[in-house]
């Protein structure tokens, strides 16, 4: 099994989810993160004092998938999340040793 972590633009979350669901991936976990990278944050000025917000809000999605479809999942995320502008984000792929569904105790790909 593979564990795919993608850092994407927040407004792409829905599209990615739909793209994946077409591939048959029904579950994923998302969370809000702050991204630091080439895309820079912005400046705010309050009463003449400047504050640099040096991060950009991003969404991190985590998807556990079987080895068979891992590649297509990566492709899909890459295609759907792409806008072509700096800050589109990254995809990281890990080996997943084991997965368990808490409700049933199923393990392996059946747990996903």
């Amino acid at each position: 099994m593979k564990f795919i972590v993608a850092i994407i633009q927040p407004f792409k979350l829905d599209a990615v989810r739909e793209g994946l669901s077409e591939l048959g991936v029904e579950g994923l976990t998302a969370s809000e993160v702050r991204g630091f990278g080439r895309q820079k944050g912005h400046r705010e000025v309050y009463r003449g004092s400047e504050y640099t917000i040096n991060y950009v809000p991003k969404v991190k999605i985590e998807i556990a998938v079987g080895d068979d479809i891992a590649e297509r999942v990566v492709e899909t995320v890459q295609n759907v999340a792409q806008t072509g502008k700096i800050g589109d984000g990254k995809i990281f792929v890990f080996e997943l040793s084991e997965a368990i569904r808490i409700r049933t105790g199923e393990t392996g790909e059946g747990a996903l």
Partner: protein
Amino acid sequence: MDGANTAWILTSTALVLFMTLPGLALFYGGLVRSTNVLSVLMHCFAIACMASIIWLVAGYSIAFAEGTPWLGGLQKAFLMGVGKDSLAGDLPEAVFFMFQMTFAIITPALIVGAYPERIKFGAVMLFSGLWILIVYAPVTHWIWGGGWLGGMGVLDFAGGLVVHLTAGVSALVIVVVLGSRRGFPTELRPPHNPGMTMIGASMLWVGWFGFNAGSALAANGDAGMAMAVTHISAATGSLVWLCIEWVKFGKPSLVGVVTGMVAGLATITPASGFVGPMGALIIGLAGGLVCYYAVGLIKHKLKIDDSLDVFAVHGVGGAIGTLLVAFLVDTSFGGGGLAEGMTMGSQFGVQLTGLIAVLVWSLVASFILVKIVQALVGLRVSDDEELEGLDVTSHGETGYNL
């Protein structure tokens, strides 16, 4: 007793209390880090409670009972001898006492903006309590209570000197002794909740109608005109700040525009019963402009961490308004007219005397008070406490559990 005037001053009392609770508290609370928001609200609230009791016990008497030109006597301590039928002018004295109490509440609460995020709660309480007795009540007596400055003819309709200058100067003094926030001026966090600040500012604006128009102590044309000029100056100050930011940064900010509003309001306060609409436009303009640059001067040039700009807005605003009124009171500017025998020049001299006297007294007395407080309970929390935020470390609470 005049029922109509009483009705309006009862209302004004509610409005001015509302300025502090929750108005000012929110105005300040939104500007600090999220881990200090409750401590700021607490400062304002606890000061309000303590000031009320001190006002009852002695403050009111020192300020308004007959006495010397310097201090009132203690014959009205605990409102002794004041019953339902006692009058102050054509108002029940209980109403006048309450209306003035709300001023004694907000003035020390204004100072809260100087020292948030790093001061000990005990120091806040001790300093504020002493300050009301040593600075606020005497200065009030000098100007409004039959004291020497009032006798000289100083014009201070609703507290440019009594409220804003005393608070502004003392704020500066306390900051100089207390020191800056960790990370000042480069590594601070932006205001955690500008919307909260705007809510507070709006309440201040509305409440200021009670503050200034209430200071007419009557429901009449004086009150009406005071309300009108107050409003015009607030609007003008806001727009000035908005325009400066729009030109300078391309992005006029909410925090900026409401700061301009407070500048406009603080500046009109001493003048509100004396000037006309023209004067109000000029005062709003001056207040917005000068306070904007004063903030930069104090914070960025002098590197004094008067954290929420109490001196630059209230102190400077109150001072400008106090001086400008010498001219704008004249009928040529649409004002109510100079007192008999006064010229603009002589009135300016009187205003300047009042300003210097109040400034010096606030400065000296506050410095001594701060030193006493420092010696007795200490001023500053530890670095770790500052880092974690005062909400948890001083009050055992968390602002947002969302």
